[in-house]
């Protein structure tokens, strides 16, 4: 048992494996947040007038929230110092800005960065059929497979390009699921967002490949504020992957992203995330503050939105991917694994809002806490008055790998219709000594046994990830558990 405890300690103390800094010359604007900065960001990106006006409206709303201290969201089970929003630079872009036609033109330093992350862009392009829209800090620098997608009428580009080439789509959908008045961080993002991804799948098209972006936070002292907008038109299907790692940094980095998904009639969107940003050192110093607003709307009948996430990084995670089930017979799903160690804190979960008839939602959340971390599930299932025959199943399991960590569940169930069937269950457990003993008997070491048990605990969720991601996710989880022990 001693070696076991030792191992768990090592896991809890292990260093961040993906920490380094890419030396690319960056174009960064001064710290601070005011109207001038918003105008500067907008002008740097050659944005049209309407977008600047929208940013400014969002900024004024954010100001009114920031002015009243009780409007600042403090309800989460998180403990962190107040953020000085004037001490952050809100824009950073690689300075050599021209858009590349081929990967050969891309800074080789940048390509090496991706290789170290295990995502060789060229290889992927040739072998795996994944189109990669790589975002370093805030500006999109490489987009692959675009032509092939274009043949099917699929638009997959950076947000800035979408603003330039498809303003009517952006105007129609931006802010329609997450308005800038939604919450504190959504307002902030709407005011200062630098770039992100845009995806439109036309009627009846099944996207032939997984679309993916890899986000990295790169410049010291810059927050990253992407905005993703995915529109799936009638009868279409898309699987979207988002994965992140960030270099090791000493000061807290703020990340406030917004993701909006619109699924029209009979459309299906599958959104998968792996999040592995710098979690801070053993004392909890540094690390990324991750405040994300993710929401999808099942707008048409029989539409479906599915969120799958593996959260292992960030010192603070505040994230509730949600689905508004507006169309009849629509389906919402949320599958999540959150792993915290060291001093990490996660408050994550989902919201399922049932509005249409015969809607169903499934929530399966697995939390694993180690070290001195705190891991909370917070989720809402709301059945509106007119929503007939709504069905929900929620399951929240927690596993504790130490006696100094915390695992919490805060579910909210709001039922306003008698035909709803809502079930929620939660359990908390630890890795059993008998389980480890059983593995030892069969010649499996403590470490491997714990990996085995944790991986089995998460199996249900990891199986939901697309193939390429599932492999990476398993590897990541194993590395996280392994820590410095190797």
């Amino acid at each position: 048992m001693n070696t076991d405890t030792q191992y768990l300690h090592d896991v809890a103390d292990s260093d961040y494996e993906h920490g380094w800094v890419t030396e690319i010359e960056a174009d960064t604007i001064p710290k601070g947040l005011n109207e001038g900065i918003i105008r500067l960001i907008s002008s740097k990106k050659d944005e049209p007038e309407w977008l600047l006006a929208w940013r400014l409206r969002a900024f004024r709303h954010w100001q009114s929230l920031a002015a009243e201290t009780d409007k600042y969201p403090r309800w989460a089970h998180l403990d962190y110092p107040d953020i000085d929003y004037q001490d952050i630079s809100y824009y950073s872009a690689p300075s050599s800005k021209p858009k590349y036609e081929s990967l050969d033109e891309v800074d080789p330093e940048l390509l090496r960065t991706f290789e170290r992350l295990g995502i060789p862009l060229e290889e992927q392009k040739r072998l795996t059929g994944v189109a990669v829209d790589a975002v370093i800090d805030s500006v999109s620098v490489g987009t692959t497979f675009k032509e092939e997608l274009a043949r099917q009428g699929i638009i997959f580009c950076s947000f800035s390009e979408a603003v330039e080439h498809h303003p009517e789509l952006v105007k129609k959908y931006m802010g329609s699921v997450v308005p800038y008045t939604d919450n504190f961080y959504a307002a902030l993002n709407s005011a200062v967002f630098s770039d992100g991804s845009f995806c439109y799948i036309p009627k009846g098209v099944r996207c032939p490949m997984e679309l993916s972006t890899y986000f990295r936070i790169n410049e010291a002292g810059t927050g990253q504020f992407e905005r993703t907008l995915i529109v799936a038109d009638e009868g279409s299907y898309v699987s979207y992957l988002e994965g992140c790692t960030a270099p090791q940094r000493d000061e807290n980095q703020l990340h406030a992203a917004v993701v909006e998904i619109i699924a029209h009639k009979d459309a299906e969107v599958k959104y998968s995330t792996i999040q592995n940003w710098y979690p801070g050192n053993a004392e909890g110093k540094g690390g990324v503050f991750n405040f994300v607003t993710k929401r999808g709307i099942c707008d048409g009948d029989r539409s479906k939105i599915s969120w799958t996430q593996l959260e292992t990084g960030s010192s603070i995670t505040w994230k509730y991917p949600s689905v508004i089930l507006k169309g009849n017979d629509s389906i919402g799903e949320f599958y999540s694994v959150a792993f915290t160690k060291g001093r990490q804190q996660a408050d994550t979960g989902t919201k399922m809002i049932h509005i249409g008839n015969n809607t169903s939602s499934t929530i399966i959340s697995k939390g694993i806490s180690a070290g001195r971390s705190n891991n909370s599930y917070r989720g809402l299932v709301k059945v509106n008055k007119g929503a007939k025959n709504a069905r929900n199943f929620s399951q929240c399991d927690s596993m504790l790998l130490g006696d100094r960590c915390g695992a919490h569940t805060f579910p909210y169930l709001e039922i306003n219709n008698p035909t709803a069937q809502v079930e929620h269950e939660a359990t908390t457990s630890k890795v059993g000594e008998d389980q480890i003993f059983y593995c030892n008997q069969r010649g499996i070491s403590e470490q491997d046994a714990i990996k085995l048990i944790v991986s089995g605990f998460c199996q249900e969720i990891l199986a939901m990830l697309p193939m390429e991601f599932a492999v990476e996710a398993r590897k990541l989880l194993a590395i996280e558990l392994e820590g410095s022990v190797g």
Partner: protein
Amino acid sequence: MPAALIDKDTRLEDRFVSAFEMQEGLSLNGSNDGLRRLRKEAIGHFATLGFPARKTEAWKYTNIGKLLKRPYALTFGPSDDSVSASDVEALLIPDLEAHVAVFVNGHFNAALSRLDDLPEGVVVTGLAEAAETHTALLDAHLARYADSEGEVFTALNTAFTKDGAFVYVPRNAVVEKPVQLINLMTTAEDALVQPRNLIVAEENAQVRLIQSSRATTEVKTFVNAVSEVFVGDHAHVDRYEIQDEGTTTSMVTTLNVYQQASSVFRNSTFTFGGEVIRNNITVLPDAEQCETHLYGLFLADGTMHVDNHTLVDHAMPNCFSNEFYKGILDGRATGIFNGKVLVRQDAQQTNAYQSNKSIVLTDTASMYAKPELEIYADDVKCSHGATTGQLDEEAIFYLRTRGLTLQRARALMLVSFARAVLDNVTLEPLQEALDAMVTARFSD
């Protein structure tokens, strides 16, 4: 003696503070310095805390401020002659032999009570009287378990404490017959009644309590009751509360339980009527091997609003707790269940279970469930489950093929749903009486 009718223009909290200043001397045991200090502190806490705002998380689904705006009278005669033995009779449990203590508007009424054959050493009386006769016990226990600093309604109650029930079961005493505490409200004007109950069961003591109340008038009453229960080593306390008010009575009840080693505490709350009912239960098993059971059943119809909040605060290892709440919501009723299990770092080997099941019968009724787990120890077994649904169509169809009317089939299923809670009532006559109440509710 209708003093201090609250006037309309000042801030709500200030009305209570000035009422407190006006009638300080009228409160419980004005001559006792300790109690006076307690009340003074409490009114200070009350003023600081203020009533819950609309956004306060613990009061998210219950807008209590709206009710408090009514100009309730805060004081009235210590007792009322209009209450007769027949009023009491109506609240007795058929076939149940019990010691009965009667309170009128929160004040102990010895004449109506039947407490002749209490076992040696056992005391059942009013808190005001106990303040004179059992000063040491009050000093040791009163306001020790309820949280005046953090809970605004506890602070308010403490500041205005005048009377309530006092039950003392000394070491090794076993009270065979249950003790029934009946509170009758008969004020002539809208009133805020604030009973304060103290139950002390010392080492190895055993007692069963039934608490019930009823308003006999049509005026609006608001009851802000605080009960503190001390359960000593190896002691057993079973407590049943029956809430069957008319639509003119609202209630905030706060129950704070402090458990010592190897003690067993069981509480059951049955809510059948009322305007707005809010029950706060906080249990602190502060030693090893404690056992805690919390049961609840609420049947709400009309515009009734029932809000059950529980917190089991596991601070010590090797304890067991179990919560089981069921509700049926009809009409435009609203039900809330917010149960929280907190397992602190040192509370290893805790087993804590929580279950909440509700049926919503109409599309104007609502159910809000918030079962929470907050766990800081790793070697524990904790689980919670919450379900909300409707009656199973197929089961109803089955019963109808057997010749039952739709009405009968529904009634049968609802009664059996509720019985799962009643099964845990160990006093047979009480169980039968409650069963009859539930059956009557669904049989028409």
